[in-house]
């Protein structure tokens, strides 16, 4: 045991040893005839610089002593932790889960939100904010206003089919303007990248070209060096590969890794007559600019707005009254150094919320640990007092507590890092819908490591010091004199109680949050869709290479539908332009009954469906009739509407036979309503039922080359895809199609809510568990503190029940205070999550009450166990101590 006396003794020993040596030498010299003074000087000289050796010896011995003491501390820490296995495991698990969960989530937040793009000088990049832009606007900026910036580019996400024939092989890709890679500052991995020379209609000097990703190069071409010049079939058209991207560039968006990059001008090749390049009403491009060095974001925006009228004039809205406003609408530039990301905007706020939740759990875990350590320290009070009396310094004992705390937090952190790796990978897999896999660069970089280390260090210091405060209140004599009971200051007791109150409050908030999110998810998952999705399979068809004229489209649709219906297991089949929950939308304004121009929000959603569509979807005609083959091209224009449409637009006239005007000014048409169908969701379950009208396919002009066939397949689906393949190939070999069941699509649509529900449910349970552990600890401590008092009461006639009630009453006070604070916190915090909820109030009283009841039950049970132990004490044994 090392303390000040030991140190001084060591130094004294070294001094004595050296001094003895010198004295002996002096004697010898005197014996040889030297005088005493000369002898002493000579002896010191011969020894060398004795002071220096003394110092070195001291340092060496001291270092050895410290190493020895540390080893001693370490072994002691291990031993004492193993002596209380339950507490130790609980502490390590709490810390591990807290740190692990935080790191996993933070890695994702990091990858999604904070990591800058792997491009040249990303801080100079800016996107043109707002939704999307038309190609005419882009071309205007490119041709007339290029000097405003150091570079500008336009791009759009697109899916491409790389299969030369037969079933589609769909990959993510990008249409990019010629300046794309230049603006981003990317160097090719192999060959060359796109240039402005490629971005001309009809192809540049190399014809239609494409740049592919590293992943595609390895996956499809085996990473062969002879890749430049090879042909790649894109949507059944031949493109020449001119280069491969470097491995460090995954794309302009976080979470998406496109495999092919085509010049923007080749969109005309791909989509043929449906090309959006010259369409002034097709808003589909993202614009990205690189500011001049030194040009601020505001400067750049101002410069762009200077040319605003000229740019916007290229794409004017049809309504004159809107034109003026449109021309003066400002452009906004937003920083794009971290890339744009649909994934980010979709998941950002729930991720942040869940991160806050996890931080709360970590706080609870820390409070737990502090309490546990305090409880253990107080239980070892007697041992500590004895050691103090025997000469151990407070610093020494403090060091040992610190060693235990360090050991705990290190082990907890290591476990936490393992959980982070495993949990993070699991979470990313869950984040991806089954349509596009999510690729996030999750490598733990310094920020994640820094956060984890900081958490570990802070928790160490926090509960390393906490037990010390228990000690400084003890005077050794006092402790011994009162036979080990020790005096405890009131101030310290209330600190522990405050910790428990904080724990309970946070746990209430977490449990409330968890139940809200779980109920949201459950609500969405079981929300009525208006149609029976279980038996439905969607086939998205693209006419691809087949030659069909615009007039022949309806017949083409029908032919494909009939072919699909012949596949094994298909009971019904019907085609439509859109399908519910596809994420796509088509809406049109609804004319006013008196013919005046309708306000902007007077819209209905629209679909065009083939015969038998409602039947295939299991939707009911509530009034009038279904659409049928008589509603052909030359026949009177008719529509079927849903209940919501009737409620909104036809509330004061009988719906059947009513005439409605749909569409905007020059193209508006009047239709007769022939049927009313039940409500169904359109775009998402969250937005619920919206007014919808259904055109018969034959009467809907401008049918596109891609459409959907919905199959009703009640039974076994195993033979379906092969059968479909065969049937469709016979119908038209140039088709491209992809198959997906409705349940998959629905699952993907609520992936976000599922994750949030999963995570918050898990953390709510964790919070409950931790709160239980915490209360167990504090009650044990309270019990141990008052053993004599309890024993005396029992000796004086109180029975076990009284004792238990007494202890529980104190605990109940703490729990009630904590729960009240928790409820108040929940109600305040509810405003932030309102947008995420579905069909459940953020301040739903049922949820709050249930959370409080759950927590109280857990708390009381956790406190009841040590209370019961106290009641079982034999008063004689205790009093005799």
């Amino acid at each position: 045991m090392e303390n000040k006396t030991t140190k001084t003794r060591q130094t004294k020993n070294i001094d004595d040893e050296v001094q003895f040596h010198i004295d002996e030498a002096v004697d010898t010299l005197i014996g040889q005839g030297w005088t005493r003074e000369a002898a002493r000087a000579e002896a010191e000289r011969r020894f060398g610089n004795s002071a220096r050796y003394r110092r070195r010896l001291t340092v060496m011995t001291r270092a050895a002593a410290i190493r020895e003491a540390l080893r001693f501390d370490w072994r002691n820490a291990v031993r004492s932790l193993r002596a209380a296995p339950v507490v130790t495991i609980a502490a390590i698990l709490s810390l591990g889960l807290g740190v692990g969960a935080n790191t996993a989530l933070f890695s994702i937040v990091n990858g999604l939100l904070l990591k800058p793009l792997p491009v040249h000088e990303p801080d100079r990049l800016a996107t043109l904010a707002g939704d999307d832009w038309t190609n005419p606007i882009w071309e205007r900026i490119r041709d007339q206003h290029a000097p405003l910036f150091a570079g500008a580019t336009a791009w759009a996400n697109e899916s491409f089919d790389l299969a030369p024939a037969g079933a589609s092989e769909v990959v993510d890709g990008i249409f990019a303007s010629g300046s794309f890679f230049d603006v981003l500052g990317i160097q090719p991995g192999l060959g060359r990248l796109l240039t402005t020379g490629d971005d001309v209609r009809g192809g540049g000097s190399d014809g239609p070209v494409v740049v592919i990703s590293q992943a595609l190069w390895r996956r499809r071409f085996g990473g062969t060096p002879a890749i430049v010049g090879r042909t790649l079939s894109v949507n059944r058209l031949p493109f020449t590969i001119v280069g491969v991207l470097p491995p460090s560039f995954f794309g302009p968006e976080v979470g998406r890794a496109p495999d092919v990059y085509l010049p923007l001008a080749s969109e005309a090749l791909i989509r043929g007559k449906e090309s959006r390049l010259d369409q002034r009403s097709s808003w589909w491009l993202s614009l990205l600019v690189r500011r001049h060095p030194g040009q601020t974001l505001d400067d750049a925006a101002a410069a762009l707005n200077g040319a605003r009228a000229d740019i916007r004039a290229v794409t004017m809205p049809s309504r004159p009254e809107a034109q003026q406003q449109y021309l003066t609408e400002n452009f906004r530039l937003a920083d794009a150094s971290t890339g744009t990301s649909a994934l980010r905007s979709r998941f950002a706020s729930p991720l942040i919320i869940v991160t806050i939740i996890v931080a709360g759990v970590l706080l609870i875990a820390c409070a737990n640990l502090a309490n546990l350590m305090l409880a253990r320290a107080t239980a070892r009070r007697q041992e500590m007092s004895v050691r103090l009396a025997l000469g151990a310094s407070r610093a020494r004992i403090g060091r040992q507590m610190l060693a235990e705390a360090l050991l705990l937090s290190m082990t907890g952190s290591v476990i936490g890092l393992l959980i982070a790796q495993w949990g993070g990978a699991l979470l990313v897999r869950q984040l991806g819908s089954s349509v596009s896999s999510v690729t996030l660069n999750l490598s733990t970089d310094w920020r994640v490591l820094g956060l984890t280390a900081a958490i570990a260090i802070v928790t160490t210091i926090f509960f390393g010091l906490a037990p010390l405060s228990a000690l400084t209140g003890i005077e050794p004599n006092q402790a011994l004199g009162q036979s080990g009971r020790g005096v405890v200051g009131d101030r310290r007791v209330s600190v522990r109680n405050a910790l428990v109150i904080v724990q309970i409050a946070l746990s209430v908030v977490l449990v409330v949050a968890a139940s809200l999110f779980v109920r949201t998810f459950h609500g969405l998952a079981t929300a009525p869709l208006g149609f029976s999705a279980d038996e439905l399979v969607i086939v998205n068809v693209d006419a691809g290479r087949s030659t069909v004229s615009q007039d022949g489209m309806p017949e083409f649709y029908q032919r494909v539908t009939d072919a699909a219906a012949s596949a094994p297991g298909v009971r019904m089949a019907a085609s439509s332009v859109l399908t519910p929950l596809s994420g796509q939308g088509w809406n049109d304004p609804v004319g006013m009954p008196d013919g005046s121009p309708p306000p902007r929000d007077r819209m209905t959603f629209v679909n065009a469906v083939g015969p038998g569509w409602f039947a295939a979807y299991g939707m009911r005609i509530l009034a009038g009739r279904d659409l049928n083959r008589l509603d052909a091209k030359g026949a009177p224009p008719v529509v079927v509407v849903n209940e919501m449409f009737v409620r909104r637009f036809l509330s004061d006239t009988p719906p059947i036979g009513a005439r409605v005007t749909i569409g905007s000014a020059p193209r508006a048409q009047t239709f007769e309503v022939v049927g009313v169908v039940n409500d169904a969701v359109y775009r998402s379950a969250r937005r619920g039922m919206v007014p919808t009208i259904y055109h018969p396919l034959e009467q809907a002009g401008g049918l596109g080359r891609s459409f959907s066939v919905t199959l009703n397949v009640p039974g076994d689906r195993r033979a379906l895809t092969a059968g479909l393949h065969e049937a469709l190939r016979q119908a038209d070999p140039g088709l491209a199609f992809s198959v997906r069941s409705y349940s998959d699509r629905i699952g993907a649509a609520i992936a976000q809510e599922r994750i949030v529900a999963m995570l918050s449910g898990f953390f709510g349970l964790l919070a409950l568990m931790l709160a239980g552990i915490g209360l167990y600890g504090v009650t044990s401590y309270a019990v141990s503190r008052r053993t004599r008092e309890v024993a005396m009461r029992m000796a004086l006639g109180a029975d076990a029940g009284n004792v238990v009630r007494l202890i529980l009453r104190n605990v109940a006070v703490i729990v009630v205070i904590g729960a009240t604070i928790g409820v108040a916190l929940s109600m305040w915090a509810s405003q932030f999550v309102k947008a995420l909820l579905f069909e459940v109030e953020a301040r739903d009283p049922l949820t709050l009450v249930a959370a409080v009841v759950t927590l109280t039950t857990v708390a009381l049970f956790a406190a009841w166990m040590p209370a019961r132990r106290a009641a079982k004490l034999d008063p004689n044994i205790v009093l005799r101590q």
Partner: protein
Amino acid sequence: MNFLQGTLDVLILTALAGAPLHGYDIVEWIRTTTHGSVVIDDGALYMALHRMERRGWLDAEWRNSPKGRRAKYYRLTAEGRKELRAGEKNWTKFADAVAKVFAARS
């Protein structure tokens, strides 16, 4: 390993093969036995003694010297005796090797 340090250790261990000695005695014994050719640096001696004590090769106790002064006496442990034997063997091997080198030159 540090050849000089190793040699010093072996010398000290040899000195302590018999009765326990204190630091000054050790220096004198080596000086006398080598007829004055080897005089150990005092500072290095005490560093070596403390190091070997920490390694468990030596045991130490404070006794009164014949003159009545308080001195620290060192003696070999079982571990120390093993080290001594190993050290002797190594030194002999080394000396043979050096002799061979000289023989090759002449």
